């Protein structure tokens, strides 16, 4: 065998191994997808069915057995609302830090990141009691406020990095032309940063959509998100695998697509800008 043949063989083997690993890791999701189109009887058949008559009954009947629409609505409002509030606070701050950094800017950013490391369970009681005091237990407002605060440091960090990558020369040129600060922001910086802002917001929505601790601890029936709806399937409804799968697919599919679109921000956001 020549060296070239050896190289080709090596590449083939590597590709095969890579695909086997990929399929193994992805398989549970694929299986959940299949199960969501089975009847309850087919779902628990032994040996498991790979070929079957698919039914969409689990999807069409979802709202009869669960409060799917209400929980989905809560998930949308809390994750989008929390993100919007955090972006509203973070954009001006990150902008000022990036374009007019002071002596303490770096320390302030690091301190902000460190608040992210406070374990939620360490402040469970105070947050619970404060929410109770203001009558906000089991409301979406409480979740929106908490969600915006837990994501604020990550959003600050990503936006700060975005704004810093905008070439200073562009700003200086526009200042020479006598552009006001407001116009500088709305007409020069924002068009450049727009894509970055959008994907930062998407990442924040992904993280909040899947947030479990506060959602489970602070809500019961009214403001529960999809995370807590699925948690309620742990027993005894969990025995209905096909319905569980259908609810899960609906709860995860949109966010998985968002996730695929925001890989780059995810890397930056979750490593606090340390890996790019």
């Amino acid at each position, binding site marked *: 065998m020549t060296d070239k043949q050896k190289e080709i063989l090596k*590449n083939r083997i*590597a*590709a095969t*191994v*890579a695909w086997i*690993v*990929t399929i193994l*890791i992805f398989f*549970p*999701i694929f299986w959940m997808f299949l199960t969501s189109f089975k009847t309850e009887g087919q779902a628990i*058949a*032994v040996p*498991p069915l790979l070929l079957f008559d698919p039914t969409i009954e689990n999807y069409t009947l979802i709202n009869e057995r669960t409060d799917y629409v209400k929980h989905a609505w809560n998930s949308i409002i809390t994750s989008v609302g929390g993100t919007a509030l955090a972006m509203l606070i973070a954009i*001006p*701050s990150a902008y*000022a*830090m990036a374009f*007019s*950094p002071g002596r303490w800017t770096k320390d302030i950013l*690091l301190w*902000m*990141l*460190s608040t992210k*490391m*406070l*374990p939620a*369970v*360490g*402040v*469970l*009681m*105070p*947050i*619970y009691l*404060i929410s109770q005091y203001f009558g906000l237990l089991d409301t979406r407002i409480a979740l929106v406020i908490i969600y915006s*605060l837990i994501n604020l440091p990550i959003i600050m960090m990503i936006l700060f990095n975005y704004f810093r990558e905008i070439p200073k020369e562009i700003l200086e040129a526009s200042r020479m032309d006598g552009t006001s*600060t407001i116009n500088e922001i709305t007409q020069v910086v924002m068009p450049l940063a727009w894509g970055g802002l959008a994907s930062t917001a998407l990442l924040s929505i992904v993280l909040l959509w*899947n947030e*479990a*601790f506060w959602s*489970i*601890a602070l809500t019961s029936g009214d403001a529960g998100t999809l*995370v807590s709806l*699925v*948690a309620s399937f*742990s027993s005894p409804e*969990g025995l209905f*695998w096909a319905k*569980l799968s259908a609810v899960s697919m609906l709860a*995860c599919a949109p*966010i*998985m697509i*968002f*996730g*695929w679109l925001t890989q780059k921000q995810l*890397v930056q956001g*979750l*490593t606090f800008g*340390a*890996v790019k």
Partner: protein
Amino acid sequence: MNRTLARWLQAPSIILLLIWMIVPLSMTVYFSTQRYLLQKPELSGFVGWSNYEYFYTDPRFWPAIVNTLVLVGSVLAITVFLGLAIAILIDRPFPGRGIARVMLISPFFIMPTVNALLWKNMMMDPIQGLLSVVSRFFGATPIEWLADFPLFSIILIVSWQWTPFAILIFMTSLQSQDQEQMEAATLDGAGFWAKFWNLTLPHLARPIAIVIMIQMIFHLSVFAEILVTTSGGPGTSSTNLTFLIYQEALFGFDVGSASAGGVFAIILANIVAYFLVKAIGKNLTV
């Protein structure tokens, strides 16, 4: 932009985060010195260290600490090892790499409760679960995963979700590796392992450190996966510190001792956070 305006723009985020940090934190410390039972508010008062003593001498405390550390340590070992191996495996081009990458990172976007129930039922169920079907196919006795190996099962479930995270980070930083250097080493006759130890691993040293520390922060507070699979049982065999405090707080209604536990959790997280902030700080250019 002048300095004053810059300060005003920064103020809201700084003030809000300051409040978010200080108010609950000082309340937790305060409650931890009080007797405070939600169902018997008339009994409240200052009790000094006794909540800490109560929490510390609780027979569930040490198992919970040990479980927390075992969970964090095992998940780290599994995810970093697999993450490295898979990231290097898919670093070279192969047919369908784009699709494979998307499939590989997908589990990271599954919400924790779905993840846990999917594994609890469709994978690990001792009768109909896929894992038991596979083991029966090979003539082995199916394992009662969550009953016999509760902590190990949770480690598997969490690792399935976080290996994609490690893959994603390592994959991203491998792309910035100096390819000319790698080719030069190949021409000099360096084998795979020589290149791995001398070039790839040093290049990935910081991403590995970051992945370890980020995961530590998240895994110290693993919660939903335990709640929906084992509820910490059987006994305390899969209770971690977060879950123990949660039980104390929202099932036991004991604010005082839950807060004392919270202080323990905060101290544990701070030790990790200290090193993390040091590592990130070096990279932050202002």
